[in-house]
């Protein structure tokens, strides 16, 4: 008799529990990967709900289920479970959110509406690998991965100070992406990180898939082809710029972090510059600036000179140019456009194809099409050299996004040069300068230290001076603490 009564009681309890659970799990159970299971031990029945696809089976089996079988109540269970941040809640939306973040929800009817949430997220992530986009021969070989936790870990490892602050925000109604804004308290300007935070909070978007979404959404001028945040995959670079008083943004699921405020010159400094001797680094940097100018200007100059200004060509060079162009039926602008387009096609095809096929395409396109078009008399071999060099030069830009911009702005120059010759090139250049003058990054001038002219910041713009002269933080970031280290002490060497 007793036995039957007891049985009845438990079954009634089970029923009750199932009902409460049902109200919480109502929306969730529509999905087939949402599992509910009932664990009955000697005392009580627990109901466990979780997303099979989000949770780690190991944790569930070894730690959770194992302890659930021993516990009498939720209270006892929380004491038994070996997790640091257990939550107990009755808020339905909170529970659902937690479940969607990979938590396991445990409930029993005795403890009424109390639900215990245990984090058991399965960590499916890539290993930290060497950087691919910003590869450097010397220096650390770590790069960010798609995990927020790991990325911040990589940065914190390099800056073990309490002043490094991470402010978390969630962006996207669908994607609920975690976005972290990092800065060093006491160095970074309040205005800078507050601007970033405010812009992130003001975002109204359904999902962001990568940090590049964020760049496009929160940069000062969204119609400019120039990115106004640097994206980098190097934790060492992030650590360095945080020390300079800038703000970094980490986006969950993005292997690239963002840096702001920044200047146009920073886009042309590879982080490897700091690992090399200052003379070598400065030389490389100057080469890069030359490459950019070359890449933008050389084809338009060719078109301008050959269309309008034959007089500019020195007499020794005339024969070379004339022989290469005698049999060509096209005007210089068409010739140049065809070749530039061919290069862009090659680049695009190479970028869309798997690596191995891409290489083949590069060889076929580059060598075969190039030679064939010269032999067929469609383009002059001088222009072929020029265009190929210009393309090569545009790939020297360390930040990929900027390289794309450089390749794009070449085309307006080309058209203007065809239309009004050298003057057109000069006018396009003026347009470019004015555009850069008008740009700002987090409200800070983009063309600094050229304008506003800040002689002190030139130490790390076109060239990189030795570290002992880099004792102050860049004025551009308007840091609260401007001094990096004492210069006179740094100069002094004990024998």
């Amino acid at each position, binding site marked *: 008799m007793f036995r039957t009564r007891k049985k009845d009681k438990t079954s009634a309890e089970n029923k009750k529990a199932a009902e409460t659970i049902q109200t919480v799990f109502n929306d969730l159970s529509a999905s087939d990967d949402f599992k509910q299971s009932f664990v009955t031990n000697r005392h009580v029945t627990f109901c466990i709900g979780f997303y099979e696809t989000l949770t780690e089976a190991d944790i569930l089996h070894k730690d959770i289920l194992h302890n659930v079988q021993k516990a009498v109540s939720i209270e006892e269970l929380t004491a038994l479970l070996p997790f640091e941040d257990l939550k107990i809640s009755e808020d339905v939306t909170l529970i659902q959110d937690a479940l969607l973040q990979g938590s396991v929800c445990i409930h029993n009817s005795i403890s009424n509406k109390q639900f215990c949430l245990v984090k058991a997220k399965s960590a499916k992530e890539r290993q930290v690998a060497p950087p691919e986009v910003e590869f450097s021969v010397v220096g650390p070989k770590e790069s960010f991965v798609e995990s927020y936790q790991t990325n911040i870990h990589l940065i914190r490892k390099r800056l073990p100070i309490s002043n490094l602050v991470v402010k978390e925000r969630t962006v996207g109604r669908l994607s609920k992406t975690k976005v972290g804004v990092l800065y060093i308290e006491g160095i970074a300007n309040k205005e800078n990180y507050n601007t970033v935070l405010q812009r992130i909070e003001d975002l109204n978007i359904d999902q962001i898939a990568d940090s590049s979404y964020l760049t496009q959404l929160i940069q000062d001028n969204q119609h400019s082809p120039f990115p106004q945040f640097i994206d980098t995959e190097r934790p060492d670079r992030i650590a360095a710029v945080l020390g300079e008083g800038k703000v970094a943004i980490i986006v969950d699921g993005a292997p690239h972090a963002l840096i702001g405020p920044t200047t146009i010159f920073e886009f042309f400094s590879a982080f490897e510059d700091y690992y090399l001797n200052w003379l070598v680094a400065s030389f490389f940097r100057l080469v890069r600036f030359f490459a950019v100018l070359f890449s933008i200007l050389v084809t338009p100059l060719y078109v301008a000179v050959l269309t309008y200004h034959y*007089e500019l060509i020195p007499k020794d060079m005339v024969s070379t140019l004339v022989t290469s162009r005698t049999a060509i039926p096209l005007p210089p602008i068409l010739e140049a456009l065809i070749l530039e387009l061919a290069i862009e096609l090659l680049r695009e095809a190479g970028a869309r194809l798997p690596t191995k096929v891409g290489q083949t395409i590069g060889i076929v396109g580059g060598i075969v099409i190039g030679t064939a078009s010269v032999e067929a008399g469609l383009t002059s071999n001088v222009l072929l050299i020029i265009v190929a060099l210009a393309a090569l030069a545009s790939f020297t830009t360390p930040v990929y996004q900027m390289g794309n911009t450089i390749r794009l702005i070449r085309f307006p120059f080309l058209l203007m040069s065809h239309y009004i*010759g050298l003057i057109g090139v000069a006018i396009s*250049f003026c347009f470019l300068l004015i555009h850069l003058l008008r740009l700002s990054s987090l409200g800070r001038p983009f063309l600094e230290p050229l*304008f506003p*002219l800040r002689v002190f910041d030139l130490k790390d713009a076109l060239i990189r001076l030795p570290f002992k002269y880099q004792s102050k933080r860049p004025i551009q970031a308007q840091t609260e603490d401007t001094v990096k280290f004492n210069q006179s002490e740094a100069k002094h060497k004990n024998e």
Partner: protein
Amino acid sequence: MVQKEEQVSPFLVFFLIHAIQVGVGILGFQRIVIKSGGNDSWIAVIAAAIIVSAVIFILYTLLNRHQMDIIQIQKKLFGKYIGSLFGLIWIMNWILLTVTVLSSFVEIVEVWVFSTINIYVFAFIFILLTYYCLTGGFRVVAGICVLGTIIPMYLYLTFLFPLEHTHLRNLLPIWNHSIKEMGLATRDMSLSYLGFSSLLMYYPYIKNAKSSQKWAHFGNILTCLIYLFLMVITIGYFSEKQLSHHIWATLSLWKIVELPFVERFEYIGITSWVLMILPNICLLVWAAAEGIGKVVNIKQKKVLLIILLIVYILTIFMSGRERIDMMNNVSAKLGLFLLFVYIPVLSAYSFVWNKLKEKKK
């Protein structure tokens, strides 16, 4: 009152003054000055610079006293209507200067580089460029002044090429001209320094404007040094008679430049000069637009469009040597009168006016 974010550092006045003084004039100032100054013209360059410095000093005393721009000062001193009328004269002066600079440059491009260029399109693109610059505000204008000074600096190096063929003995004998001739030469020379009157408009846009005076003088000195350098080379390189045939002596100097990859260097020179003309036009149009904005309350963008339209029409209308010469004359006379006669008088008047007001109190 101008907002703090729109203000620029005082040392930028150096570039603002220098950039606007060096424009189209520098390409051909030598002929006019040497006509009366002969081989002593280099003294006229220095004399004109000293006079200009004196005017800058007067401008600063006037502006420091009132801490506002010229339009507001005139309104304050002469009442709303007469003051505005005088303001319109300044605005006309700036618009005229703009048109002079632009049409001269268009002419140079047409004659030297590109005889088939479509003036309508060229002027239009230039106006578009100016509009894009000016909608960015005064900071961008100041920026283009800095870049327009720094980037074309390399051009001055190319004037070392004619140095090889320069006979500095041409400078001797020093001072063989009468005071009257030198006075004329100085007057003609001071035309090449014009344009700095825009200071009257951008003064409120400078942080600690009082402290910027030394920078203004430095800017003027740099201009003087560049003119001096060119003048000495020109006197040594050309004979006086030869020079009377060269409207643009500076461009003729470039003809001697020989580089292994470029045959006619003046093409590169004139092309780079776009970057030096742009600050001139931007700053002048900015001053005019700001001035109109102060006289009547219209939105800055509309004013800008109207001014640019006027400049465009006048520039196209003013093509041809005679017309440009005529306009040069008019704008020069107006500019000279305003700066060297009107401003000292105004400054004296404002001094007395201030004193009287203090006494009344």
